[in-house]
């Protein structure tokens, strides 16, 4: 009697709970399996990495737990709706008042990569590397341009009470610690005076073409050229849907996508030849290149990584030749990716500009392009790379 009474009393809300739970637990693995890309390692544009492949099961991989770790990673990488899940998480974090998201401040329709301060040890190592390099390579005069990041120019967007050091002070410190023979180029003032203009991307950690244009103007006196003025340029809006690296970090689509502008001279825009490093034969010392006839690699406008349309992705060595340049001078740029936006302007002023990215070189770069070939050397770094990258500048002093 009692039992039958109980059996009749199955409560609908309990069925709802059980059904929701069961459906969800069944749906997620099934959807994950169905929508899993067939490639063993699909590429994630937002994360800029290959997602992990399904691990191989063997006695070894079982014993050292590589299989289990690999499985956990595989599932997490391929989990159905992964980026949507992360967007939900980031929204929840925002509602909880979190002011940082994956190393990014999001405030006032702008994302800024966070820089809290520098590590004295890394700083001295990098500083000494540059100073020693310049001392040992006096063949060409050396210039240094250290670009502040958006966080410094838009300090008002840094959340209250966040303890971030002043990049202006950092730049001043580096400029005074550099060997006297290195001529420093102040671009902070020019950027700061124009902070009401669109000088940094909202969703990417780089400066915009206009920001780089300001730096090109600010460097004119030191580097010894007569810079073109704003009105000399035609400005083409190449994209208005650029979502950069900081978007990838936060997946916050509430921030307006960015605009990418290409600057070309209205008159006498030079016909350039761009050679991008392809491979290097260490025995013969010969470098093979891919060649392009434009500063702007438009194929990147169709993919997520649109900033790479400025002279391509980071590559060990890129040379821009401009036979019609106003002078016969040549410039060696040792750089991070901030230079990619700037070098299109510089290339108007030099017959040859070569960009070296030490992060992608593991040999003495002088074997690929001797310093004797250049009239000037210019370092272009932004504060975050210079202060945080522990290894690239040390490669300056590699010997063959």
């Amino acid at each position, binding site marked *: 009697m009692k039992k039958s009474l109980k059996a009749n009393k199955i409560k609908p809300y309990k069925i709802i709970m059980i059904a929701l739970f069961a459906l969800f637990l069944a749906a997620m*693995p099934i959807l994950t399996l169905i929508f899993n890309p067939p490639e063993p390692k699909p590429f994630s544009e937002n994360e800029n990495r290959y997602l992990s492949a399904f691990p191989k099961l063997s006695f070894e991989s079982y014993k050292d737990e590589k299989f*289990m770790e690999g499985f956990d990673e595989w599932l997490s990488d391929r989990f159905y709706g992964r980026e949507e899940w992360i967007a939900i998480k980031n929204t929840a974090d925002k509602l909880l008042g979190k002011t*940082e998201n994956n190393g990014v401040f999001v405030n006032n329709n702008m994302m800024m*990569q966070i820089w809290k301060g520098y590590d004295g040890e890394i700083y001295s190592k990098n500083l000494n590397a540059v100073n020693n390099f310049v001392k040992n390579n006096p063949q060409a005069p050396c210039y240094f341009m250290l670009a502040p990041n958006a966080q410094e120019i838009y300090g008002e967007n840094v*959340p209250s*009470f966040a*303890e971030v050091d002043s990049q202006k002070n950092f730049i001043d410190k580096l400029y005074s610690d550099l060997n006297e023979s290195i001529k420093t180029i102040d671009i902070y003032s020019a950027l700061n005076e124009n902070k009401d203009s669109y000088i940094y991307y909202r969703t990417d950690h780089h400066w915009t073409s206009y920001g780089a244009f300001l730096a090109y103007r600010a460097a004119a006196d030191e580097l010894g050229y007569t810079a073109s003025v704003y009105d000399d340029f035609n400005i083409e809006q190449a994209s208005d849907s650029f979502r950069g690296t900081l978007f990838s970090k936060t997946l916050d689509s509430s921030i307006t996508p960015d605009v990418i502008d290409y600057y070309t001279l209205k008159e006498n825009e030079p016909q350039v030849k761009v050679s991008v490093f392809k491979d290097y034969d260490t025995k013969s010392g010969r470098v093979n290149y891919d060649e392009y006839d434009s500063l702007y690699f438009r194929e990147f406008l169709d993919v997520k990584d649109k900033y790479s349309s400025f002279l391509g992705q*980071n590559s060990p060595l890129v040379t821009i030749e401009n036979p019609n340049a106003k002078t016969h001078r040549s410039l060696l740029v040792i750089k991070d990716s901030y230079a990619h936006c700037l070098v299109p302007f510089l290339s108007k002023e030099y017959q040859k500009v070569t960009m070296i990215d030490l992060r992608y070189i593991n040999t003495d770069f002088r074997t690929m392009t001797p310093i004797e070939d250049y009239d000037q050397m210019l370092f272009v770094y932004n504060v975050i790379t210079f202060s945080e990258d522990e290894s690239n500048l040390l490669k300056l002093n590699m010997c063959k």
Partner: protein
Amino acid sequence: MVFSSLTFMFIFLPVVLLIYYLAPKRLKNLFILISGLVFYAWGEPVYVVIMIISTLIDYTAGLLIDKFNDKKAVRLICLLVSLVMNLGLLGVFKYSGFILQNIDGIFGTSLYDPAHALPLPIGISFFTFQSMSYTIDMYLGKVKVQKNPISFAAFVTLFPQIVAGPIVRYDDIAAELDSRTIDTDCIYSGIVTFITGVGKKVLIANNIGMLWTAVKEISAGELSALTAWLGIIAFTLQIYFDFSGYSDMAIGLGKMMGFYFPQNFNYPYQSKNISEFWRRWHITLGSWFKSYVYFPLGGSRRGIKKTLMNLAVVWLLTGIWHGASWNFILWGVFYGILIILEKLFLSRLLERIPAFFSHLYTMLLVILGWVLFDTADLPTAFGYMGAMFGGNGVLWDNQGMYFLINYGIILLIALFGCTDLSKRFFDRAREKTPKLINYSTPFAKFGVLILSTAYLADATYNPFLYFNF
């Protein structure tokens, strides 16, 4: 495998539950054994052998104790074999490194070799205590023998409680091992408890833990009082939500499978004295020590001197159980002293003061206890306590304010959540509007599950920024 992972929630659990519900009754225990071994081997592919050996020995010991019912010596030998084996495993894997280090420290020898240090098998402190409870109870004649090796192995390897408790004694689920009913009521209530646990662990403990991690990185001498308090309050809440969340998940999973595990937490931070705190915190551990150490030693029935002695032993062991390191031992001694003091006179005093002060007394000591528990060494612990009371001369600073802005809301949610206020509110609301509450529960819990999934999915999301730098 941990419960709060995508692999567990979306691969292991759905597959296991599906097979478990479909399996005929007589195969259910065998399937529990298989799934438990897979679950354990996922985290301990090699040491799963230890668990199997321990299970076999305790099973055999139980059989022999039963068989030689009238031979005292045999029974005692069986018990001793089981105890020596279980405590031996704990001793070797958990304490040998610590003991060698201390011998080295005293005699200047170099017995301890970090390169060959034994790793701590997951959950060893839990499953050894669980299966020891069976042989001890067999010896004391408190439980009936389990003749079916599969049923006994299912008890040890029952995956919900394998790695982090609650410490389920054989006695707790002996009846259910042989026959259990699984109906909508227990599945429903299991799901609700499980999701509550997931939310506690993933949404609250993990988030608030980041604050404690950040504060711990700052050297104790540079902490403002605000930061120090925020940090230790975060840890106080983290450890409660982490541990009780894990227990809820285990209890919920158990219910889904037809097992009723004992409760492990009962709003411990609402206690009015330390003795009460320990009756509400990790209840199954406290009751294990009570049943198998305190009472056998005579409990409180042999005069005050002996009682205090027994308390001291229990609390020393409680400290040691938490980990092989001096700070856990000190932490145990700290509680032992407090409980002895309460037994002597303090609790009578506490009863007479307003409730607010007895709560304050309890929480202050519990929080100071957590400093001992989770700092590297004594100087750091005292430095940290100093910072809490303004020892660094800075009451608050930008750093503290920044933590407050970033973690204020989650701290408030957690503070609210560790009291029974919401339970009381919903219990009352359920009486008044049962339909509304009953029908909104599934959707609210589902929301928690969705949100927790979002936080779990974030774990490996790691854009590589340097591509374009």
